[in-house]
């Protein structure tokens, strides 16, 4: 049924539809509405789950390591500082191969305090072994949370579903909230390979010497590769029932494009409009949206970008001492192709500054005007002095 819901409610509806058993969370702006909706559902009986009101994000994820090890479907949501505090447990979750799902509302890191959108919080966790999926609108958020359980449980890895602060979390959009019956058809209950069960004694998380540790890590690397293969299947099954799919990446007007813009999150929607307008004026511009960031879909990205003359990546994040993080990944993906276009990196919208159509068009014009990138990153829209 189509309803007009807030992005946070779309997350909560998906969690309810996925028949999650345990939610554990600590409130942080702008994630709070998600946990408020969920505690409401738990209290009014429309969701049969336990809600753990723990004292920090660190304990929120630690508690889920406990619940998921017993084999029950587990969910948390956080943002910015909260995700940073979870860092140790993020490694633990993937190392323990627990398919926990998290909604991560992108928020800038302090100091200075800033509650607005910025992707550095989640991208800084790119090496923790979590699958990462970046969403563009609330429908995609709802669908992706449901898919995330399917995907994570097939490859035994945790999944982070990422959405922009306020632009998604607090914005109302028409969203198709599917019937429980259809979601049940799509998402079977989780059958963990191992779980805490005193009937079948088991010990988890032991000391692992150099003789085996490397193999364990290699297995996680393998699971990430499996995720790349499984993802299209997860989407096929989803499309069959719900008639929607998003793709690991989405290429818009890229076939004959000379310059391809690369975006993620809500900046993508604005970029679609900019590309349409520029195309109408005869500009050969295309757009590549990146949804699946971990594992990074290298082959798919290469196929779209390699034939272009230039690539212009818009990063709402920054790795200090290097460059925008999507730009880094795109460069790394392209460098082992024989012939590839130069990659222009642009940093925009840090700490919630708006990435308007004008900003995006300016980025396109800049990339068009120069033959080769002057540096790794150009910061767009900085104030003078």
């Amino acid at each position: 049924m189509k309803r007009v819901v807030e992005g946070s409610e779309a997350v909560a509806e998906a969690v309810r539809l996925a028949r999650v058993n345990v939610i554990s969370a600590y409130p942080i702006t702008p994630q709070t509405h998600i946990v408020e909706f969920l505690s409401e559902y738990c209290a009014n009986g429309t969701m049969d789950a336990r809600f753990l009101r723990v004292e920090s994000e660190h304990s929120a994820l630690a508690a889920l390591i406990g619940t998921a090890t017993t084999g029950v479907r587990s969910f948390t949501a956080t943002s910015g500082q909260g995700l940073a505090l979870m860092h140790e447990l993020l490694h633990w979750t993937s190392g323990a191969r627990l398919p926990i799902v998290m909604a991560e509302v992108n928020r800038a890191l302090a100091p200075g305090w800033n509650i607005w959108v910025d992707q550095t919080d989640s991208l800084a966790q790119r090496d923790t072994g979590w699958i990462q999926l970046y969403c563009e609108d609330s429908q995609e958020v709802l669908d992706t949370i449901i898919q995330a359980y399917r995907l994570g449980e097939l490859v035994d890895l945790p999944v982070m579903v990422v959405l922009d602060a306020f632009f998604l979390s607090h914005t109302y959009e028409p969203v198709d909230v599917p019937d429980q019956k259809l979601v049940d058809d799509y998402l079977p209950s989780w059958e963990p390979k191992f779980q805490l069960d005193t009937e079948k004694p088991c010990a988890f998380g032991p000391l692992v010497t150099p003789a085996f540790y490397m193999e364990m890590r290699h297995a996680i690397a393998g699971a990430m590769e499996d995720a790349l293969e499984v993802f299209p299947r997860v989407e096929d099954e989803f499309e069959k029932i719900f008639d929607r799919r998003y793709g690991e990446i989405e290429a818009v007007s890229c076939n004959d494009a000379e310059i391809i813009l690369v975006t993620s999150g809500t900046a993508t929607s604005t970029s679609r409009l900019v590309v349409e307008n520029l195309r109408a004026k005869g500009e050969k511009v295309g757009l590549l949206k990146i949804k699946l960031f971990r594992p990074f879909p290298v082959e798919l990205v290469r196929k779209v970008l390699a034939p272009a003359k230039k690539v212009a990546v818009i990063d709402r994040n920054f790795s200090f001492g290097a460059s925008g993080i999507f730009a880094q990944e795109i460069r790394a993906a392209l460098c082992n192709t024989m012939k590839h276009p130069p990659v222009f990196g642009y940093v925009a919208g840090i700490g919630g500054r708006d990435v308007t159509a004008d900003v995006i068009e300016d980025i396109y014009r800049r990339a068009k005007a120069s033959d080769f990138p002057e540096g790794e990153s150009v910061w767009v829209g900085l104030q003078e002095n």
Partner: protein
Amino acid sequence: MKQIFQRPKYLKDAVFHYCPGCGHSIIHRLVAEVIEELDIAEKTIGVPPAGCAVLAYDYFDLDMCEAPHGRGAAVATGVKRALPDRIVFSYQGDGDIAAIGTAETIHAANRGENITIIFVNNSCYGMTGGQMAPTTILGQNSSTTPGGRDSLRDGTPIDLSEMLAITKGSVYIERTSVNSPKNIRKTKKAIKKAFKIQMAGLGFSLIEVLSPCPTNWKLSPVDACKWIDETIVKTYPMKVIKDEAGNID
């Protein structure tokens, strides 16, 4: 005409962002008055929290060093150890100090750090919209406990001040409120004593102030003050919890 009331010297001429009837504004004033009366402003450093008081540096005309959420006692420890002749206080809400920051607070007290903490307890996460905090009293409605906090499901209200009193390193801990003129005067006296204990180098002091949050309690400012007397004090009685300093004057 004789002037009998004025803005304390160390509160800036700024408009508080706090909600009408919020206790923070009063507590800010009391801290500023005490600092002025003790004549320590030039050597005082404040550590504000994450929470409703996150903008405290906009109001106190003092050196301020923001702490990450919950880490006030640890940051204040570092500042005080590096600058032992300065007066260091952290200003924290219950969501900050008695939830995410419990561990470092207990350990700072246990080490007997010579710092002062102003702990503002409004029994919920105020800034994020009134969710249940560990301090939320039983039966209290919050945006994550619709129908009220239930001890079997959500645990019982944490009494951090009593816990800190058990540590050997703490010197002075008192719980007060700012819900009446009488209690405001008592709170000021307690804050002053806490700062004096630090000035004398005696060790860890903390004043827990029960503070009305009309917005999240969904009460009028007057009723919020009444609710403290009628309900909150049953869980958190106002009293001197520990005093090893005696008469400090």
